């Protein structure tokens, strides 16, 4: 007999309220279309028949790639089955109602049932549609948030610091562990309270990439800076990058060693520099420099870390950041290719990464996300990482799914022509 582990009630409610949990759920509940587009239905059917083949392949011997694909597709196949069942019962009820031989009592019963069956069908259509949206390949991973001031001088640096605190307290409230991989203020030290120059926060929970993915982009602030004497409102900006965090334990070893994978780095292509005091080294000097700089030569990506007294710890952190940046860059290149293709094929527009995504207006106490079009008025709660921020973030995730669904439908229809 299985014994269920004892979990305290408040933990359970806390977990169920967590945005990570909601994230897992909303993939299957959000959609715009009432009924499913025929093109998407056709795609789902193709996938279902493909799955039969895959299952046979697996029965004949283990194939890791096939197994993975099968796992991803079973959600679609299940959703399709549910939809088929719901569709069947609606069709049956309708034909019963329209059949002149049906007696009045039965017809009434059928009419009663039809309402709820229609709702079930609509639900099933939604689930089926969202199940077809490909899940981002990094979505399950922990992530790194890189935050830097953009245009706007020291006010931008102060705002960048505000964003760091916003995400930190958002994570705190939701019991998501964070650590600083790097924190540098304008003086090059890590003392808090000074304008920020660069911060890298590691968000350690699974699915963090999926949760924060939509935060990437330029965040704009409009307010009267503390340094402004004439009371004028300034506009400045800070940028947020979201990278997958690639700790060894979040990925299989195979992912690091397969040259085809986004996570692969050829060690020979990375120059490792430890900052030397110059001169003779060895017993001649007792230097304290422990900084490490890594350069990925083919892409000229440079990462340097000097936080710890331990050179070896700095090296580990630098490798982690370098791997994350390279993986993200490769992914973006692929995504750009897909976007370009979609644009040329069906004219679907997508926001570029350099575009401003959100405005924080202090004077009006308002936050507007330019992608989902959502505006909220509780700026303080947003900037303190509260519920209102979660609301904005969720609106963007839903917006992204809608976009993906639109693009998918357009593509399917184009393919049919």
């Amino acid at each position, binding site marked *: 007999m299985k014994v269920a582990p004892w979990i305290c009630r408040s933990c359970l409610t806390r977990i169920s309220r967590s945005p990570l949990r909601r994230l897992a759920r909303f993939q299957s509940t959000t959609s715009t279309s009432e009924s499913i587009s025929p093109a998407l239905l056709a795609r789902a059917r193709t996938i279902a028949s493909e799955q039969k083949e895959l299952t046979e392949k697996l029965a004949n011997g283990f194939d890791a790639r096939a197994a993975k694909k099968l796992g991803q597709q079973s959600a679609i196949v299940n959703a399709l089955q549910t939809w088929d069942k719901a569709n069947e019962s609606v069709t049956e009820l309708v034909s019963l109602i329209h059949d002149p031989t049906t007696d009045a009592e039965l017809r009434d019963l059928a009419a009663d049932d039809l309402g709820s069956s229609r709702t079930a069908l609509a639900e099933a259509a939604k689930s089926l549609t969202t199940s077809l949206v490909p899940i981002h390949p990094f979505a399950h991973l922990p992530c790194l948030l890189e935050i830097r001031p953009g245009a706007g001088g020291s006010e931008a640096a102060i705002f960048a610091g505000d964003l760091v605190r916003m995400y930190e307290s958002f994570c705190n409230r939701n019991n998501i562990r964070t650590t600083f991989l790097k924190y540098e203020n304008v*003086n*090059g*030290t*890590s*003392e808090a309270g000074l304008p920020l120059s660069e911060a890298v926060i590691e968000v350690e929970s699974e699915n963090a990439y999926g949760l924060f993915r939509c935060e990437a982009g330029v965040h704009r602030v409009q307010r009267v800076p503390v340094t402004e004497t004439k009371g004028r409102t300034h506009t400045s900006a800070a940028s947020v990058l979201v990278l997958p965090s690639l700790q060894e334990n979040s990925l299989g070893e195979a992912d690091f060693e397969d040259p085809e994978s986004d996570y692969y780095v050829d060690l*020979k292509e990375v*120059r*490792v520099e*430890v900052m*030397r005091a110059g*001169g*003779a*080294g*060895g*017993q*001649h*000097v*007792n*230097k*304290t*420099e*422990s*900084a490490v700089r890594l350069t990925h030569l083919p892409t000229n990506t440079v990462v340097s870390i*000097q936080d*710890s*007294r*331990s*050179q*070896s*710890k700095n090296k580990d952190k630098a490798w982690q950041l370098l791997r994350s940046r390279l993986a993200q860059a490769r992914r973006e290149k692929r995504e750009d290719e897909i976007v370009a293709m979609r644009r040329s094929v069906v004219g679907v527009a997508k926001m570029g990464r350099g575009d401003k995504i959100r405005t924080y207006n202090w004077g009006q106490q308002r936050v507007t996300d330019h992608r989902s079009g959502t505006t909220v008025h509780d700026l303080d709660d947003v900037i303190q990482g509260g519920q209102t921020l979660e609301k904005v973030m969720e609106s963007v995730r839903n917006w992204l799914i809608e976009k993906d669904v639109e693009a998918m439908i357009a593509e399917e229809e184009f393919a049919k022509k």
Partner: protein
Amino acid sequence: MPRLPYSLLWKARAVDHLLPPLVKQCRDVHAAQNELRWLRAHADTLSRPNSKAHDGLLRKMVEQRSTGMPLQYILGTEFFGDLEIKCRPGVLIPRQETAASVTYLAQLLQRAKNLPSQLHVMDLCTGTGCIPLLFQHELHAARRDIQVYCLGVDISTKALDLAKSNLRKLQKTEPAIVPNLMKFMRADILKEPDNDVPSVLPSLKAALELNRKPKQWDILISNPPYISPSAYWKTTTRSVRGFEPKLALVPKAELGGTDTEQGDAFYPRLLATAVEIDAKVVLFEVADLDQAVRVAHLARKTNAFDGIEIWRDQPDQDDLEQVPENISKDRSCFPIIGAGNGRSVLLYRGVGASWLGMPAPMQGTLEQQQVSL
């Protein structure tokens, strides 16, 4: 030393009033900022932040540092690879370059298929004990199947006390480090085994017998004093001269010879020891490429080794440096590996070649070659 530009100190003052004395010592604002951060963190562990005691403590530490006292003595530790090693005045502070060579050696050996199930490692001139501690740690990480038995030898009782104290500290946190497999012992490694009059300071051979230690050792490592008297004045920094023990840096003057010979004084005895204990792999740290080449030639003359390599500071990195003209002539004789200054000499023989993943030694035994000469 050239004076620092006044503007630099002024800029540093604007950041933090404690920074200028550190900038004078580090000669670089970034490095000084890091040091101040570490000192502050250290003060945090000793007293309540923002208290009077904290302020006083931090100011005192900055003052000490500005006199040239090594940061590692003030904080009491230095990182050596992954290990945090205790440091104390009177014992040399472990160097990053040493850690890089030891780590690289352990990495090469990790892949060996035919290592003995108990590997015997001797470290001569062990100081804080950092070398055997790191070696055991690194090899264990990849090879749970191999027991690494280490012996660290030093002449200084201060060093030996500290080495033992490091062992006690690290055995608590590092599963690889086991007291049964890590011993420290006192001996004068320069004393010839033959004219060993019984005394408080035994030769290595006598000490091994006295302590019932094995006569044969698989691996010999040493970072001996290697600085010549003139280089001591010309090349070492003031902080090294003022605060680190000369015994650890410059071979004793009684050994005689030219300035260069005095700097090289430990290597002939170390090479002889390597042969006596039948070491298969040998790693000696050196001051620079010139000394590396001299030691390599000495090693070749013994006819005991199948392979000789010179390693730079970062043996795992590609060569970015130019090899100087006078040495490039010797290059054909000794492969030079890695990036940075010339840092160590690797020797191997017999089965050692295969442990290191090197091509098998040339055909015919050394004796045969000598006969044919």
